[in-house]
């Protein structure tokens, strides 16, 4: 039972924190949200140079050999600056899938360029009708020669507009809602028949609608075994959920600290508003929820790597719920306590508020995780 960061993790935290303060404060996010890409390839290379993109890659393959806890340490600091580079889609989602399923050639071709900062990635799984059901897939991959022809449409693909390769979930067998029969394919963004409709998000980041119309891929683009991708997809989304908790924790801390500072400095009726007991109690409640979110992030970060899928799902769902409930409490009260200026674009608080709300709805919202939790075997077992 140990909840301390190692010395190395402390160092990484300080490194990323300094980086964000010096090279990517919130003002940089404001500039980038006006651009088409929404993030900067040169910054992505810098992050690769720091070793952050290869944080989970085994040491013998030139990476840091870290766990998801290391990923979480990085993400929390990036979250504080609203750093828009595609860390979650590339490293957490696609990177995790490649780590588990890519053969040597695929790893060399698709993962290595990403961890070196030369390319970015995306993972396309959700569809218009699927909501949070990962088995709901109408996108089809039909055998054609040695390869496949893929047709369908994916929505809200994080970094789908700029990624060099997109991992696509497509059905090679079974009916629309079957867990079995799903496969994972690496598709080039510039493949014939693939179109990306860039979609700016509420949080200033970009996603895409990715349309595939007869996109042809060779046999070497299948990841893992045909028809057996579901467990990997679930795991990828759980990693996303854990990542959301970690990045969100950075934003929650920013919102909380800024709120407390504001309570001390803002005066009305001749006194600091932080002397009003009602606001003090709200701040205390915010503190409690923030600390619970911190504990939830630790839980999710540890369990993201747990090979016991049932245990992983239980705890990541519990953690993600805390982000949605507790994180929401912090963000809604932060705006409230800032008063009118909390609803301006000029203040940074609204930016954190919007990103947190997006994270809450990604990788399963509160209701989806409650539903999943009670469907797991462990829920019915009475100890």
């Amino acid at each position, binding site marked *: 039972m140990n909840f301390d960061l190692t010395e190395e993790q402390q160092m990484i935290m300080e490194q990323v924190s300094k980086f964000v303060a010096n090279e990517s404060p919130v003002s940089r996010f404001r500039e980038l949200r006006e651009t088409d890409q929404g993030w900067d390839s040169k910054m992505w290379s810098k992050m690769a140079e720091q070793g952050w993109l290869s944080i989970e890659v085994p040491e013998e393959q030139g990476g840091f050999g870290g766990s998801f806890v290391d990923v979480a340490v990085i993400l929390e600091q990036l979250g504080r600056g609203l750093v828009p580079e595609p860390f979650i889609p590339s490293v957490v989602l696609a990177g995790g899938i490649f780590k588990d399923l890519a053969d040597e050639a695929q790893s060399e071709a698709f993962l290595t360029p990403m961890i070196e900062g030369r390319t970015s990635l995306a993972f396309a799984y959700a569809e218009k009708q699927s909501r949070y059901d990962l088995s709901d897939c109408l996108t089809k991959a039909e055998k054609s020669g040695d390869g496949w022809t893929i047709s369908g449409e994916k929505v809200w693909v994080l970094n789908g507009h700029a990624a060099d390769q997109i991992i696509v979930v497509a059905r090679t067998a079974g009916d629309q809602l079957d867990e079995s029969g799903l496969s994972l394919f690496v598709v080039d963004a510039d493949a014939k028949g693939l179109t990306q409709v860039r979609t700016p998000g509420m949080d200033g980041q970009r996603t895409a609608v990715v349309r595939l119309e007869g996109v042809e891929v060779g046999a070497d683009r299948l990841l893992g075994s045909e028809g057996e991708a579901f467990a990997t997809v679930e795991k990828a989304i759980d990693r996303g959920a854990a990542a959301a908790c970690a990045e969100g924790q950075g934003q929650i801390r920013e919102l909380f600290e800024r709120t407390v500072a504001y309570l001390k400095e803002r005066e009305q009726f001749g006194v600091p508003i932080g002397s009003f007991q009602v606001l*003090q109690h709200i701040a205390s409640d915010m503190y409690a929820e923030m600390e*619970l979110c911190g*504990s939830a992030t630790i839980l999710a970060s540890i369990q993201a790597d747990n090979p016991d899928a049932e245990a992983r799902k239980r705890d990541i769902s519990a953690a993600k719920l805390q982000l949605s409930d507790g994180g929401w409490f912090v963000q809604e009260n932060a705006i409230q306590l800032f008063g009118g200026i909390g609803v301006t674009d000029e203040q940074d608080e609204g930016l954190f508020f919007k990103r947190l709300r997006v994270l809450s709805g990604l990788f399963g919202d509160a209701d989806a995780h409650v539903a999943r939790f009670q469907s797991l075997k462990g829920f019915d077992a009475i100890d």
Partner: protein
Amino acid sequence: MDLSYTPEQEEFRKEVRSWIAEAMPAEMKKHAQDGANFEHSEVMEWHKILYAKGWAAPNWPEEVGGTGWDVAQRSIFQDECVRANAPSLSPFGLSMVGPLIIQYGSDEQKKRFLPKILAGEEIWCQGYSEPNAGSDLANLQLRAEKDGDDYILNGQKTWTTYAQYADWIFVLCRTSSEGKKQEGISFLLADINNTPGIDVKPFLTTGGTLAFSETWFKDARVSQANRVGPENGGWSMAKALLGHERTGIGGIAESARGLTQTKEIAQDTPVGKGTLFDDADFRRRIARKEMRLRTIEIMNLRALAAAQVGHAPGAESSVLKIVGTELQQEVTELQMDALGHNAMGWLDSPTDALPSSQQSIASQFNYLRAATIYGGSNEIQKNIIAKQLLRLPSA
């Protein structure tokens, strides 16, 4: 970072679990399975069993009879006792005045009082709150006037838990009215049975039990030798003691038990062609509580891990008290909802109406409205966080 217990800790848990199963008498076990309120005699019986094993005071230093367990082991032991629904020992001697005497008492006081607390031969109760001194405890008025080698006590205490079973009471009393309120308070020990003028009057709670008493002092004579620490030095000792009262007060293990019981009730409750446990809405309500509990449990484990390396609980323990007790109440509300119309039942309902295993749920539900009030009300806890941790300005 790691969530798992060490193999040694798992071994220890197994050892504790099997010892409890073996040592608990059959009648007590049945009572425990029914989730009933224990009689005082059963609590004392369990105390004697633990004492014989050497496990009555896990939190005391080994040299005065503690077990020598670390924080993790103490927590595991506590969890296993709650899991088995073993009687809760009276905390006032073992967890409050005992540690206080260990830290601040004279050698004579240690010799006189500690062995009997440990053995369960003398039972204690706490004389702190008064009708006009609850959250504002420093406002206490019970007077102790010097008379020769004694103090003469006059005044009233309230919320004295289980005073009707207690042999001794530790009291905060006013020995000076000069200067700040906190600076005129002393810590006295009084022998209830052998001191004329001490009068204990139990009163009913909404839970239907005589959990609390008013304790009246009329010209009650207490020797100055029974003062712990210096005269007018009682407040800071009492504050330190309140810190002890707060750890474990979050009721995490109790909430886990409550949720398990909720599932059991739901599984045994027919609804249409299935059971209440098939109801999607009810399952989700249970799930939300269980998920919240898991996050609180992690926060508690982090606090324990910090305590393990000597980090004293600060204002952060206020967070656990607030969120733990709120959840504890919500779990009792869910248990009541699981009962449906059976929630109308009361203690000693005939089993034609209500199974014995469900009889104390309503009692607990009512009593635990106190959880957010005792141990420093949740509003006071929020004040503490705001002032001490966040350093928000005073009005």
